[in-house]
């Protein structure tokens, strides 16, 4: 009976053959994350993950800040699906959580309002001479990593365990709002018990730590972050989360949304400089990793090729706890050779 109750919180994820669409924010702030994800899926698991370089933004940030109409976003989504159809795929793999919500929303509209589907088909044909099929499965990249978590863990040289004490590292998760709050039945665990990240952490040997504001938004707020004078909304929401997780002394924050990953990293710096406070014992901040970054790190990928030097809260304390072998001197190397690192913050401690 119990297993039946939990069935509605499960999600069917195909084993192979995906059409991949990227995230604007992940490409901007964490360029190594998608590169590593594709390497994990294509080279480690030998999956067929196809990308068409003609795909674009889904317009999600413009849509949720109300400068792009519903019909426009719907037709841009249809164009992406046309590329998928032309390539012969029917499973969509989405990197961005905002995009994931957008794709689900548009397909839901078409399901309940066939007249909107017809109008979208007409608009797309008129604008681009393209035709599309609705995907059979819409999967977020964190769904796919979760789906293959046992395979990754069985091959991973590292575990989320303190190398010295042998104890599991304490991890707090933050699942992006648009992953399962809009369509709870399309995410592992739904809106109430999202397990897409906690399941991954558990499989890698970490200890999931619950905290009161676990489901609270990171505070992106779309228009609020885009407008400089409105960013107080964004930082205030992240602060609610940091204050809530601080008593549990987490070693790591894990996310599945590119925006959340960036905000939970950057706002720790901002709050440290504004208020003189960090949310860890050593003044270094709590490291933040996305699901791909975490998985790639556990799989032994080079932290600097993974792009972890682009995080403001530095990862070295976590790497040292796990016992990751890395070369500190190569952190700021560039393609052309050794480079000079960033300036140091005044409050948030970093390794020079």
């Amino acid at each position, binding site marked *: 009976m119990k297993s039946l109750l939990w069935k509605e919180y499960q999600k069917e994820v195909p084993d192979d053959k995906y059409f991949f669409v990227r995230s604007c924010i992940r*490409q901007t702030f964490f360029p190594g994350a998608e590169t590593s994800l594709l390497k994990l899926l294509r080279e480690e698991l030998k999956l067929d993950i196809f990308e068409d370089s003609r795909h674009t933004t889904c317009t999600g940030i413009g849509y949720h*800040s109300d*400068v792009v109409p519903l019909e426009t976003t719907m037709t841009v989504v249809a164009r992406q699906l046309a590329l998928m159809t032309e390539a012969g795929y029917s499973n969509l793999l989405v990197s961005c959580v905002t995009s994931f919500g957008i794709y689900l929303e548009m397909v839901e509209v078409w399901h309940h309002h066939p007249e909107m589907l017809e109008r979208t088909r007409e608009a797309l044909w008129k604008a681009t001479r393209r035709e599309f099929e609705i995907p059979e499965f819409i999967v977020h990249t964190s769904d796919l990593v979760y789906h293959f978590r046992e395979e990754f863990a069985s091959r991973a040289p590292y575990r989320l365990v303190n190398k010295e004490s042998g104890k599991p590292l304490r991890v707090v998760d933050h699942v992006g*709002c648009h992953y399962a709050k809009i369509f709870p039945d399309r995410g592992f665990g739904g809106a109430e018990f999202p397990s897409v990240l906690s399941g991954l952490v558990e499989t890698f040997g970490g200890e999931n730590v619950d905290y009161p504001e676990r489901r609270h938004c990171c505070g992106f707020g779309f228009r609020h972050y885009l407008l400089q004078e409105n960013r107080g909304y964004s930082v205030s929401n992240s602060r609610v989360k940091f204050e809530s997780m601080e008593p549990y002394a987490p070693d790591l924050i894990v996310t599945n949304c590119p925006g959340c990953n960036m905000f939970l990293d950057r706002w720790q710096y901002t709050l440290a400089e504004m208020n003189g406070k960090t949310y860890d014992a050593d003044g270094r901040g709590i490291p933040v990793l996305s699901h791909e970054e975490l998985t790639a790190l556990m799989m032994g990928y080079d932290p600097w090729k993974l792009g972890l030097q682009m995080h403001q809260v530095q990862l070295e304390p976590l790497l040292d706890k796990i016992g990751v072998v890395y070369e500190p001197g190569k952190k700021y190397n560039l393609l052309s050779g050794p480079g000079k690192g960033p300036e140091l913050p005044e409050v948030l401690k970093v390794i020079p």
Partner: protein
Amino acid sequence: MNLSINNFDGCVNDKLINEVIMSDLLLQLHEDLRFREGLSACMNCGVCTALCPAASYFEYDPRHICQIVQTGDEAELEALLKGDEIWQCGQCLSCKARCPRGNVPGYVIQALRRVSQMNGYFMQSEEGRKQLRIKRAIGHSILTTGYCVHPRLVDPAVHPEQGPVWAWANEQGAELYKQCGSAFYDEAEGGLRKISQDVLNELGSIFYETGAFKLWEAIEGENMRTKNNQER
């Protein structure tokens, strides 16, 4: 006069709508699918307001907004469309997961913002007027690059909150990004690849066909009219 778009069982009564029982503004809202899907029968329990992150920080009350649009009072609706409140929602859509009646105040907000912009009401509030900057930043980025955001749009000079690592990463550009597998604005495969003009033309055609430029004209046009009036 209070006018309701809902009959007793909460279903939209299309016949009544067609017989001009609704106000003009309510009709415009009703044309937006998100409005029809987002509000069927709000009982004003306030769960949305209780969990709403924006309600914690701003003078913003989604329960009250649903009450206004449900009663359909033209004067109250117009005041709502001219005010700051509808611009405070952060679109996290936490309200969708929690409403016991299946309403989505976040969708209602999207419809209200659209009507506010198309009627020029957004220019009467400080928050509404900011739409011009968002349109010029994000809207233009989509059509000129194919991305909502990209590194060159996030100028460290106006993003001090991003910290010194972002300033450093932004300065290194291709030297750093390419070692993480990014195409960094080159015509190549991978992340941040240069999107071809043919593709951007397709996006432009979609924007034209689906009314995005009409919305943009409303945002820009109202700003121009206001500016001209001020200069006169």
